[in-house]
């Protein structure tokens, strides 16, 4: 099996997607002034959410609503709620982060990274493995709950976080989290794809299907640049314990996803995706929420962990690993 993993990983490493991520990383590390304008990066991510949501919805409308759909959503909710507790425990053991920083980092690992999900989808596609379309909806469901767990952990274990500012700042936070742009766009596109069906897809196919991989390359170039700049400026936070955590935690998460998937009875493709979701760490929704709710937590730590360690790990080794595991089981 190690063989297949390495094979897959090697193949994966030479895909343009990964190579453009590496290019961005390298450009940032040699201090090139290459950069993707902020507006373009935001538009690329709108495109990704739009395309992936819509395609997910169409696939559900096409294959019909599965009995496992509801179970998957519930599983996603539970995973997102619980994984931060695992992460928090690990962090307290493996690293010297204080409770506040640990809670903030833990929140990221319960939530998800949609680009990691997309990358997994495209690996599945290139291997000709089908998956359940509604996992897009599961991805949406998993974005937010982890934030609540992180806040609870902070309030429970950090004396620093327990000051009066909290109540006021948290007012409206729940609403913001639930209606944050990526969730609304992802769920909305999913519903629209569901309503429009294959007919609707054929209308906009040459916008959201054909150029998808190319757009993804550009997006990963930008992710590489961002991750590289983050690593350059925050590498000193990356003690060995933290780095190890950034690799061990996604593997643990993927196992949790694997167990859930086999209890639900997902297909091999679906299993890989749920594993990937559980293994991935947020770098959009959660950091923004943390800045509002736990401003004393150090953003350099959680962003570097998520973007600089776990994201590349998943992209290069994680996904092939999860695929091999799912195929074995």
């Amino acid at each position, binding site marked *: 099996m190690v063989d297949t993993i390495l094979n897959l990983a090697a193949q994966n490493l030479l895909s343009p997607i990964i190579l453009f991520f590496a290019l961005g990383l390298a450009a940032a590390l040699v201090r090139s002034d290459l*950069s*993707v*304008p*902020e507006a373009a*990066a935001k538009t690329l*991510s709108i495109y990704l959410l739009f395309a992936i949501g819509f395609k997910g919805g169409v696939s559900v409308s096409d294959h019909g609503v599965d009995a496992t759909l509801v179970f998957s959503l519930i599983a996603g909710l539970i995973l997102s709620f619980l994984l931060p507790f695992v992460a928090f425990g690990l962090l307290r053991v493996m690293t010297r982060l204080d409770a506040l920083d640990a809670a903030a980092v833990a929140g990221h690992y319960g939530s998800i990274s949609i680009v990691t999900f997309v990358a997994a989808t495209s690996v599945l596609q290139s291997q000709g493995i089908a998956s359940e379309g509604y996992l897009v909806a599961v991805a949406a469901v998993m974005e937010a709950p982890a934030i609540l767990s992180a806040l609870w952990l902070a309030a429970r274990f950090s004396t620093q976080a327990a*000051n009066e*500012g909290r109540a*006021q*700042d948290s007012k*409206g936070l729940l609403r913001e989290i639930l209606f944050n742009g990526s969730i609304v766009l992802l769920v909305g596109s999913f519903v629209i794809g569901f309503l429009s069906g294959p007919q609707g897809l054929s209308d906009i196919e040459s916008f959201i299907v054909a150029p998808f991989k190319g757009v993804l390359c550009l997006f990963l170039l*930008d*992710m590489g*640049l*961002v991750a590289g*700049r*983050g690593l350059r*400026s*925050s590498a000193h936070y990356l003690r060995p314990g933290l780095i190890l955590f950034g690799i061990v935690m996604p593997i643990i998460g993927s196992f949790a996803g694997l167990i859930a998937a086999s209890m639900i009875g997902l297909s091999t493709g679906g299993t890989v995706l749920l594993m990937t979701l559980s293994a991935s760490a947020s*770098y*959009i*929704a959660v*950091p*923004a*929420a*943390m*800045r*509002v709710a736990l*401003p*004393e937590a*150090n*953003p*350099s730590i959680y*962003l570097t962990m998520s*973007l600089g360690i776990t994201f590349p790990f998943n992209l290069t080794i994680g996904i092939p690993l999860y695929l091999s595991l799912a195929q074995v089981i």
Partner: protein
Amino acid sequence: MEMKDAKRVEITIEAPMETRLTDALDGAGVTGYTILPVMGGSGRSGRWSREGQVSRAGGMIQIICIIRPDRLDALLEAAFSVVERHIGVVTVTDCSVLRAERF
């Protein structure tokens, strides 16, 4: 041109706090302000640049309020309640305004 004395308050604050700050200002009766985008900066928490952000989390904005001197304290108190636990800078400058009746 007839000018009136006023205070110019500039608050540089994290982007995710924008609505909270403007809501606090509104609450204190401060309904006039202008928001400028910020491209990057540096402070005790290091250097950052807008073209290196996937999320708004690391970005900042700058809010400028022109206000009558006697209303300054109310404004600062409202602003402080939001800025307090966050990174950010608040400065006050003396200025004069045209069309003072609008403030």
